[in-house]
């Protein structure tokens, strides 16, 4: 659905996007992660024809989005991180206006408006003036606006920013529904835990460069090549610690009240052997589990690692 090749954007001497390459297949929900100023918004604006790139190519469904921006805009729905609304328009008129831009007939526009208001749960606000809506409602309305022409690719720049926790959950639900409708979605956010639940794949961008990209699980494995195992024991923690320290693939241990965190440089076979060794030595093991790294750790690790160079 989306292919980006060698994309570069400079503001004077500052390089906002540096030779970026990206490939988002059909139906994916791609999480675009990065610290502030990493180049997420710039990349998204270039995709949507709102900014010129210095060099590079962007293809949306095989349409050259740089040379044929107008054609590409027909299949892209964009929601910016900051946006305003028209003071004197009602909610249904607001959506009707944007639908009219796409030459949709009035009857069809009414049906689309009704459907979208239902999707974003604003049906009861249809006759209300847009500027009287709460921030969360405006965000949902803006999402509905980006859908009026039934785009195949949705580009959402921090769609949940500034929302309270309830509104965030509602937004997440809407995005899940859109995923069900088969839309390809690119979503940027700094709330990584939300992205990890929602996205099928992520890309981490730092200082204009894509540092890592792929399925969430693959990235976890790539970053955490060494496993972390947590072993809880009923008692005899000293004996358990001795067994572990003597085990060849254990590289570090960290003892808590009734558990030990083990840095482990081995495969699944080795993990089985370690557990068997503990049982053979009559250590009362309660749990033996591999700890999952979370996306926040991955993000910090990847972006900090880069900084050290």
């Amino acid at each position, binding site marked *: 659905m989306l292919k980006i090749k060698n994309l570069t954007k400079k503001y004077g001497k500052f390089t906002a996007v540096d030779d970026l390459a990206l490939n988002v297949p059909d139906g994916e929900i791609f999480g675009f992660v990065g610290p502030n100023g990493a180049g997420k918004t710039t990349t998204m*604006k270039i995709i*949507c*024809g*709102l*900014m*010129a*790139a*210095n*060099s590079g190519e962007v293809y949306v469904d095989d349409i050259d989005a*740089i040379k044929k*921006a*107008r054609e590409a*805009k*027909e299949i*892209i729905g*964009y929601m*910016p991180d*900051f*946006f*305003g*609304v*028209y*003071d*004197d*328009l009602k909610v249904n*008129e607001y959506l009707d*206006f*944007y639908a*009219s*831009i*796409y*030459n949709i007939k009035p009857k069809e526009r009414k049906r689309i408006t009704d459907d979208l208001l239902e999707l974003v749960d604003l049906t009861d606000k249809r006759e209300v003036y847009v500027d009287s809506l709460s921030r969360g409602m405006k965000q949902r309305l*803006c999402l509905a*606006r980006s859908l009026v*022409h039934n785009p195949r690719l949705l580009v959402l720049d921090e769609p949940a920013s500034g929302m309270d926790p309830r509104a965030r959950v509602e937004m997440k639900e809407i995005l899940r529904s859109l995923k069900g409708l088969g839309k390809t979605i690119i979503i940027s956010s700094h709330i990584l835990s939300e992205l990890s639940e929602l996205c099928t794949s992520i890309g981490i961008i730092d200082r204009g460069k894509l540092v890592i990209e792929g399925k969430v699980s693959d990235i976890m494995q790539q970053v955490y090549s060494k496993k972390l195992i947590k072993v809880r024991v009923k008692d005899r923690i000293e004996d358990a610690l001795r067994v572990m320290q003597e085990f060849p693939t254990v590289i570090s241990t960290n003892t808590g009240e009734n558990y030990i965190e083990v840095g482990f440089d081995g495969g699944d076979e080795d993990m089985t052997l370690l557990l068997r060794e503990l049982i053979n030595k009559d250590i009362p093991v309660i749990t033996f589990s591999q700890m999952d790294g979370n996306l926040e750790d991955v993000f910090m690790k990847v972006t900090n690692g880069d900084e050290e160079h």
Partner: protein
Amino acid sequence: MNINPVLQKELKIRMRGWRAAATIGVYLGFLTLTAYFITVVARQDFYRTAIDPEFSIGSYIGLAVMQFVLISFIAPALTTGAISGEREKQTLDLLLCTRMTPLSIIIGKLFASMSQIILLIIASLPVFSIVFLFGGISIKEVLQLFGFFIIISITFGSIGIFFSSYFKKTTAANVLSYGTIAFLYFGTIFITVIILMAIGDSNYNGIFPLLYANPILGFSSILWEQFGSGSMGFFPGFNFTQTGLNKFVSPWIVNLIFNIALSMLLLFLSSRKINPLLEKHNGRKRKRHNAK
């Protein structure tokens, strides 16, 4: 037929609330006061007993001058916030990311403002009709004058849109728009006088070329053609005579052609300015990149 969506939306927004009604009220109020003032002055002439066409011509000119002044103030005010306002409200990107071209956004904005001006002009017809009571003025003359007002409104509106596209703040766009219009009104006269003084030509016959850009010239030329006769001179370089270019074409027509050309140029430049894919710096770079 598809109506420009921006025009449609703007008309809906602009006609909502009290502002549109207040604008029409104030506009007609000024014109009515002018008509009343002229009538009172005319009635003080005790020797005038019969219906006098000269009175209607006087009223017509008085109302036309007032309308000309009002349009000069209102037309730019309606457009100076057209693009900068969208920027300030953070709604411009939402328009630019749709399939609408920058030019159609600009045209939609301009025509929304022009519709308001046309509404004001049409609403003023009943006040103007007072002159028909006394004769001496034909419908053709009124329509000719109103046509001139519409074109001049488009020019002033285009000046407003141009500065609105180039400046982020509506205040800056406002100041520069009125500055430019003031230049067309008075700056061109001032420069003409300076040039003629410098070259020592105090008897310049006809119209100095720079003054064809002056809306006052266009306006007064229409009135001169409708009611004047022979030659009329205001000052060197501003004389209505049947010499030079004016033997073939009326000064107000030359002024209108200038206005139309200026409007087209300003609208074209405005649409280029708001086109995000035509950033000057990046455009050059991309050309170089593509050439590789």
